[in-house]
């Protein structure tokens, strides 16, 4: 066995700007975690295991990707902002996946999570086992103290060794040690000793169970879950994992089969403390919110193309995190569902917009508009402008269709049901009085009459149903009229209602 070869060096970034950016770029631990998971995806991993529990004192991200060599590590870390991630092409080497990462600051996301990062990696075909410890503590020092004579800013020291590994092994394991206290609280669900504190936990549940939990009609928001679970869902939403079983009712699912298969073909599994994490998109499971409308779209503009779907149900879409549009570029999401639908302002659709969820896979051109945080898009970018316009066109068409199907047709159906109900009740009332049942005039256009009469009728209709009015009338008549006269009156009333 060859002797271990030691090496050491400085991790640097090209400028203070990049240092600042990468130090406060991510809004939550989930945002950092998704960077690490996407790194594994870009390394052609089929499976990533994340170990957080029991107390997130140390977090492990372990993948079966291609791994990296000492040279690759040093190329990457010696000048983080000058990433060579796409030098070797836009697609990954083995699985030909479009690479998600662009400027290579994904690893640096770890500095927001922990003080010490240990990377253990080996590449297939190589007997080198790379072991590097990156110390981020230094970056907490003032920038002045960290700037070297060339103006570059030291982000953290690293120490590495190259040991021996079996030739066929290939993996990268990232040990996030000394996890920062605030991160630990979030990652573990706020209170490690009180297991249910901070909301329901999805820990230890399988995909079917999680789908059921998310589909619970009483779940208004993911915030009902603890932070551990929310973090897991947020990462699952962003990274290229498969859809959950029965994520959408099967008649609709058939229409999305190709899209779903394409995602599954990416062959990427995220395992979070033993849970097979799927996209937490669960739609149309509430039987009280029928019917559903689905529209698949596909457009190609001058600067950008996209395909995706819009889904709508009858009623506000819950959990509210799924209301809006989720944009995916290269299979990774851009932020969360955008409930403004890229600033869609058509006033006539403001209400129904809340009933809609959609996902769109944009072509690579939209990546030009992607900000460094991977959460927002530059609104002045020409690809974005076109994308926004085309999405709004699709959305308008969809909403018009959805409103007709969900609101107008449902409304007509409801009226018809109500009329049938009234008819039945009148029959019951008539039967009680041993009278022939009146046949109510179908609801629709009002009978002609003067305006005051119509107004009064409408006011009364709002207060009483037709059957109630019929019953009241008969009761009063029975009380006030002799029996024979009452029978005549009732007969005339039934005839009138029938007419």
């Amino acid at each position, binding site marked *: 066995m060859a002797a271990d070869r030691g090496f050491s060096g400085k991790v640097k970034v090209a400028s203070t700007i990049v240092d600042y950016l990468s130090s406060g770029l991510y809004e939550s631990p989930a945002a950092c975690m998704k960077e690490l998971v996407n790194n594994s995806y870009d390394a052609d991993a089929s499976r990533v295991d994340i170990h957080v529990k029991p107390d997130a004192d140390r977090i492990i991200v372990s993948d079966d990707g291609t791994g990296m060599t000492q040279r690759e590590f040093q190329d990457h870390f010696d000048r983080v902002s000058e990433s060579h991630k796409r030098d070797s092409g836009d697609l990954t080497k083995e699985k030909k996946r479009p690479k998600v990462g662009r400027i290579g600051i994904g690893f640096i996301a770890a500095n927001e999570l922990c003080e010490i990062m240990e990377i253990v990696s080996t590449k297939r075909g190589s007997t080198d086992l790379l072991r590097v410890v990156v110390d981020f503590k230094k970056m907490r020092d003032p920038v002045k103290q960290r700037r070297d004579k060339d103006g570059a800013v030291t982000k953290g020291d690293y120490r590495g060794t190259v040991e021996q590994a079996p030739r066929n092994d290939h993996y990268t394991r990232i040990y996030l040690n000394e996890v920062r206290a605030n991160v630990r609280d979030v990652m573990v669900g706020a209170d490690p000793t009180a297991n249910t504190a901070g909301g329901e*936990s999805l820990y230890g*549940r399988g995909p079917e169970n999680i789908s059921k939990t998310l589909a619970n009609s009483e779940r208004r928001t993911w915030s009902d879950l603890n932070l551990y679970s929310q973090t897991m869902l947020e990462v699952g939403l962003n990274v290229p994992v498969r859809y959950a079983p029965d994520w959408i009712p099967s008649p609709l699912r058939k229409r999305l089969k190709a899209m779903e298969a394409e995602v599954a073909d990416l062959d990427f599994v995220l395992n979070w403390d033993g849970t097979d994490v799927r996209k937490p998109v669960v739609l149309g499971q509430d039987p009280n919110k029928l019917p559903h409308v689905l529209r698949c779209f596909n457009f190609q503009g001058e600067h950008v193309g996209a395909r995706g779907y819009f889904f709508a149900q009858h009623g506000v879409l819950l959990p509210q995190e799924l209301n809006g549009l989720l944009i995916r570029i290269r299979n990774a999401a851009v932020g969360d569902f955008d409930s403004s639908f890229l600033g869609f302002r058509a006033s006539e659709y403001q209400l129904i917009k809340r009933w809609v969820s959609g996902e769109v896979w944009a072509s690579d051109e939209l990546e030009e508009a992607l900000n460094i945080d991977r959460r927002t898009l530059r609104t002045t970018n020409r690809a974005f402008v076109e994308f926004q316009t085309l999405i709004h066109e699709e959305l308008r068409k969809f909403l018009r269709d959805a409103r007709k199907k969900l609101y107008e047709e449902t409304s007509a159906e409801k009226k018809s049901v109500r009329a049938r109900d009234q008819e039945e009740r009148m029959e019951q009332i008539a039967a009680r009085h041993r009278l022939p049942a009146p046949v109510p005039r179908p609801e629709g256009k009002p009978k002609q009459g003067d305006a005051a009469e119509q107004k009064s009728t409408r006011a009364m209709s709002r207060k009483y149903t037709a059957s109630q009015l019929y019953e009241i009338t008969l009761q009063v008549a029975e009380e006030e009229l002799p029996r024979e006269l009452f029978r005549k009156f009732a007969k005339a009333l039934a005839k009138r209602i029938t007419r």
Partner: protein
Amino acid sequence: MSDTAVTRAMLEERPEKDTMRELWASAVMDVLEAGGAEEGDPLYLGLCGAKGLDILKLVERGIIRRTETGAIAEEDLGKLYAIESDRNAALSLQEEFGGLEVLDNTIENILQMPSDLAWPGKRLKKILRSRVVNLDLNACLAAELKQQQLHFPVVKMVEKLSRLHAESPHVDWTLCLTLHADLKFQPGAFRRIAAYLAENFSREAKYAEASCTLLGEDLYKMLSEGTCEDGTAKELSPEKIQCLMMALIPKRIISDTHRQGWKVSTRRNIRYGATADTAPMVSWILDFEWDTRGSSAPDSLYSESLKTAISGIEEIDSTGQLVALAA
């Protein structure tokens, strides 16, 4: 997986080992039946190996619950800890039992052995004070001479663990200890082992009697008469080494821990293996019960503990059957 891990995995598949795992699970069960661990305190700490077969036994007995994904149930997360220094094995273990905390270091490093002054931090200390500590060591019995004093690193480790458990508030605990029946000693150390045993035979008649039955008259005589040299150890059969360790280890542990306040009861003193294709092993299950005589009447505490040292000795045959040995 490293060579060590492979060897260990092979050992783990043996029927004898399965019987041992049953006994360990029973020991945990007994602790639970006696009141278990305090809320939030760890119940079991083990050197579990890549497959975590001892954990599976705890699951089978319903001591540890798993979720539908196989992860440790949230309610049981703080009860169970594993030590596995092979990082590949540690990750396998975590993949098998989601949520399980695996300390990927050696028990020696975690305990900061051999230092008497350095101690693990608060968090690790809490884990090390588990109600049941299972040191299924893939190691033989090492004996050293430090400044001419006989020294057993494994006993020193147990002594350090018992000191941790003795910290206020003390925690009664059970030690499961397994060693290869093989001796690794510095020159002169075996002669000192023999002398140590000889002195104790002369002082403790009952211990001597039980040891004689266990060791056989020839070996007992050699030890008692002080005719053993380092070379003698090399001539001992694996069975004799097993018996020697069965007599020596509980005695030494009792001797080194009773003054801390521990009454040590040897619940199991078992040998197995030593056939053509299986390595000879020795396992002990020792209960440490807090006893205030540690400071006021340590000798009576010691004598009481010693009475159990070679009682109930057993053998596990190649089919996994537990057979009582006369002692």
